């Protein structure tokens, strides 16, 4: 029985839970409107306020907007990107893995060659090119993130499906006369759950970073939507106001660490521990 109340899981829970709360109900937590330039948001000289100054806990940005509120609202984009493209990518990966791994034959050859070709590509560049082509609406960004991340899990899931396809319980089901659909859906798919959970948590951190990176270059969500990547893009030449770099960056890192703690624990508690899921 895996232990659930370990310190790393608890810390991960608190971090992810806190950001999830920010994402769901930012209005309850944020002290100000994240988009509004506040009348007292700038110092008399017109500079942003450092943390703690004038009642702004994390300070203000160059437009006099409250940084704490922007970080809280920015969690929306981050959590959205951690969940939605991640789910889409895993669904595609599972579909491909099941088709290839149980279908066998030329279909398997084509699908897995495609997956492997995809795997070695400079996917970040491709994501940039796709977003440049189709525009950077939230839907496009979500679909692009899914598009560039399905291949890795697909490969690992495929290996697992192949292993399961030759296992005794599948053989038993087949000898009882179960059809292909029934075997894949009832006897193979459920056994993929632990692997899917591991991937979901590990990928979540990766998705958040990917989106922030794209936004940093101008290919993610667009202003005025509060997003940590965009906040960092605004702050990139503001070295004399380090809090503008530190606040969104630390939020980003914290959320990623939270997901990684989960992912690590999920991997350790899964039957795949020690089999190097990430390879």
């Amino acid at each position: 029985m895996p232990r659930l109340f370990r310190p790393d899981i608890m810390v991960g829970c608190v971090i992810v839970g806190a950001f999830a709360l920010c994402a769901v109900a930012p209005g309850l937590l944020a002290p100000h409107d994240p988009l509004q330039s506040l009348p007292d948001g700038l110092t008399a000289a017109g500079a942003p306020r450092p943390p703690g100054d004038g009642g702004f806990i994390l300070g203000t940005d160059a437009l006099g907007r409250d940084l704490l509120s922007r970080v809280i609202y920015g969690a929306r984009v981050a959590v959205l990107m951690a969940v939605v493209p991640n789910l889409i990518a895993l669904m595609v990966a599972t579909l491909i893995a099941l088709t290839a791994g149980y279908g066998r034959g030329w279909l398997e050859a084509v699908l897995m060659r495609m997956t492997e070709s995809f795997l070695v590509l400079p996917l970040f560049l491709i994501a940039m090119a796709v977003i440049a082509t189709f525009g950077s609406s939230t839907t496009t960004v979500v679909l692009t993130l899914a598009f560039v991340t399905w291949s890795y899990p697909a490969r690992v899931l495929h290996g697992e499906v192949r292993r399961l396809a030759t296992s005794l319980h599948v053989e038993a089901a087949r000898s009882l006369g179960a059809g292909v659909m029934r075997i894949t859906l009832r006897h193979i798919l459920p056994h993929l759950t632990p692997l899917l959970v591991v991937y979901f948590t590990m990928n979540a951190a990766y998705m958040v970073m990917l989106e922030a990176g794209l936004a940093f270059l101008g290919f993610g969500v667009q202003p005025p939507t509060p997003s940590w990547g965009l906040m960092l893009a605004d702050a990139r030449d503001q070295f004399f106001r380090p809090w503008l770099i530190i606040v969104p960056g630390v939020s980003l890192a914290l959320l990623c660490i939270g997901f990684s703690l989960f992912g690590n624990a999920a991997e350790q508690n899964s039957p795949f521990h020690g089999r190097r899921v990430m390879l």
Partner: protein
Amino acid sequence: MIALTVRQSAAPIVRRIGAMLLTLWFVLTLTFVLTFAIPTDPARAVAGPKATQEQLETIRLSLRLDEPMAVQYVRYLASAAVLDLGYSHSQRRPVSDILLERLPYTALLAVSAIMFQLIVGGALGLWAAVRSGGLFDKVVFVGALVVVALPQFWVGLVLLFVFGFKLGWFPLGGASLPEGLVLPALTLGLAGVAWTSRIVRATASEALASNIVLGLRGRGIAPRRIVLKHVVRLAAGPILSVLALDLGLLLGGAVLVEAVFGWPGMGNTAFQALQQKDLPLIMGSVIVGSIFVLVINALLDTARVYLDPRTR
């Protein structure tokens, strides 16, 4: 007999090249489809906003945009085969010229980052495996967990702030060598150091518990020599295959790192091209980036075979 051996050893190479070509074809098709899907008119992008209808028509004819898609596709593949990647209208030069000029910068950055990650990460992982369960092992484990979760471009910004702006040890950007290379390479390699240390830690402790090491010990070989010669070799294989898999990721990271540090590599070129909607240059960067990854991948595979005689 000799012919047979040659064919046996040649078969994987042929398959390897075949797979590379297949991947390249895939990339070319993808970039071709993207070029077609882009909402901006390529002729308009070349001519600029003030061009007349007639000028647009002339450009369309000269770019052969009037031909059927299939014909254009075949021509696209044919010209890519001789490394003709089109003409960049934002820089008014052939795309392949621009990219060949920038490629060495990205290669230098990527190779420095890989060396950094292999040497530092490998040493940390090896030491952690030797002192398994000790304080150092735990510190490396937690450190790797945290470092992996740090967004690369943010690490770059922080390093730039601390060592470039506050301490003034390194330039704030640009490609002055060698001091301009240090921060970008550190940034790009840092996550890799964490990964490498974790994987080397796992494979090295496996190797340390193996019969190979037991046999070496039995023959009275010094522990230091066992670790530095034999365990390193055993642990090198897996880390090289991970490295090969992560190359695409590394190149993606390079785009961001180059943008943060103003490093004049391919990533920065692609970024500028995207901002100016310079289609041939964007697609060319994707293609050359893929070729770059594929070639280094093949080199790493060779290195792995060399290091671990079992895979020969």
